[in-house]
């Protein structure tokens, strides 16, 4: 159980998040929607420990994460795929993937994980010795998600995976995310601007505006009443 309670985060004098609460179970997809600057990335960065809140807390299975280091939060199984993927361009595809699993120091499990990821993303295996620099945007996003999966996450935080990708690719990735969350012991927190597609795969939805939660509940109700997110997302 990953719980965010009353989270308030500032950048200097600017309040980016105000009293945000949400919770993730062990399965399913929760999507966080909002326009640019609504605070979605700030939320993810705070959960991952890159930012510390002024007030409120993030709890993982009851334990407070506010003083836990970024690396240790990741080792608890909270894995973020940052905006753009965060693929390390100077390293090969395989090195990027292995990086996700390295800290466990379990060579056998690493091989198993690599095999699993290669099955999910068959396009990666033939390119495993190529520098990540040479991949297209879509391939990089797949590499980033594959790398995150190597880390055997319990909670997968995705920051706008659709950004800059062709619509067909976006659909593919979203369907994959949905599949992963149901097939594995995995809960997904999907931050998106593309509300339509996000709501199509989500179980629950949270709408952020100017750092505050303006609406939350089952995704289906937000899909039915489009006016809510039209107003905040501008389309």
């Amino acid at each position, binding site marked *: 159980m990953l719980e965010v309670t009353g989270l308030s985060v500032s950048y200097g004098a600017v309040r980016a998040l105000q009293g945000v609460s949400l919770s993730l179970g062990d399965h399913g997809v929760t999507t966080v929607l909002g326009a640019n600057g609504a605070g979605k990335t700030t939320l993810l960065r705070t959960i991952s420990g*890159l930012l510390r809140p002024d007030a409120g807390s993030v709890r993982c299975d009851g334990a407070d994460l506010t003083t836990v280091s970024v690396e240790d939060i990741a*080792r608890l199984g909270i894995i973020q795929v940052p905006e753009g993927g965060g693929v390390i361009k100077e390293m090969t595809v395989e090195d990027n993937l292995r990086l996700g699993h390295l*800290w466990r120091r379990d060579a056998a499990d690493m091989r198993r994980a690599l095999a699993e990821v290669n099955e999910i993303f068959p396009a990666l295996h033939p390119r495993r010795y190529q520098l990540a620099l040479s991949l297209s945007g879509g391939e990089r996003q797949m590499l980033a998600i594959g790398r995150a999966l190597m880390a055997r996450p319990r909670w997968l935080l995705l920051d706008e995976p659709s950004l800059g990708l062709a619509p067909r690719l976006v659909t593919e990735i979203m369907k994959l995310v949905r599949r992963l969350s149901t097939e594995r012991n995995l809960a997904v927190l999907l931050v998106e601007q593309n509300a339509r597609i996000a709501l199509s795969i989500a179980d629950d939805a949270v709408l952020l505006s100017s750092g505050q939660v303006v609406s939350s509940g089952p995704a289906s109700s937000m899909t039915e009443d489009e006016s809510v997110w039209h107003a905040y997302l501008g389309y």
Partner: protein
Amino acid sequence: MHQFLVLTTQGITSGMVYAALALALVLIWRSTRIVNFAQGAMAMFTTYIALWVIQTSGSYWLGFVVALASGLVAGAVVERLIIRRIASGPPLNPVIASLGILLFLEAVVPMIFGGQIRGFPPALSFFGFKVAGVDMPFSPFDLFTFAGVLATMALLYALFRFTGLGLQLRAAAFAPEVARLLGVRVGRMLTIGWALASMVGALAGVLVAPVTLLAPNSFDSVLVFAFTAAVLGGLDSPLGALIGGLSLGLALSYIGGYMSSDLETVGALLILIVLLMVRPQGFFAGTSHRRV
């Protein structure tokens, strides 16, 4: 002709030393984006420790090993206690801190060991080989220096390229934030990076001390040469450090041999200035950008 050969081998030998110290600078630059101006002074410090061990124990190789080990420790200590806390502030501050470490070491070492110039034993004989009665232009010491630095570079390459630790070190250097998000202990990796760099610096120290002799500031010009070599090769490129070091070593050897030895430092200075004006990124800089 013989003089040319001798100058060439001397140039290669000293070039390998500059390459080693330049590699230390490159390793630290790649991982923390800092030029460690204290690297020469740190190498001086570890070399003094080695000399003390050699003199008290009578064993050169024990001193050699202790030098490398104290290099590891020194690098780790400096990173952990000082650099860690300053690296996130204004970029000028780590430069000043490294200068402070330089000053401190160059002052404290004579207080502990005395300020007089000392000799330092070479690992193997300085005297040239004789093969079938013919004088070779190089000595066992030259071979040892060449092989030693090359072997160290090869080992480090293997470490970075083929091991899990190396992968984490590279990730911590190229993309520290992403690495942390995947559970890599980036801080620890930076400490290890500095420790390894400093160990390479210590190796350079014991290899160059027999030639330059050992005094608190005898490695100042070596640092300038190493920095020039690193810039020549591109501060981001370990291979560049090797080639830059060798090129510089040869160039300075010819200048010193055919013109005047006082002009060596000036020669390096001119090379550095011309280089920085013409191609500041060096000749082998790769495409690596610093990202988070």
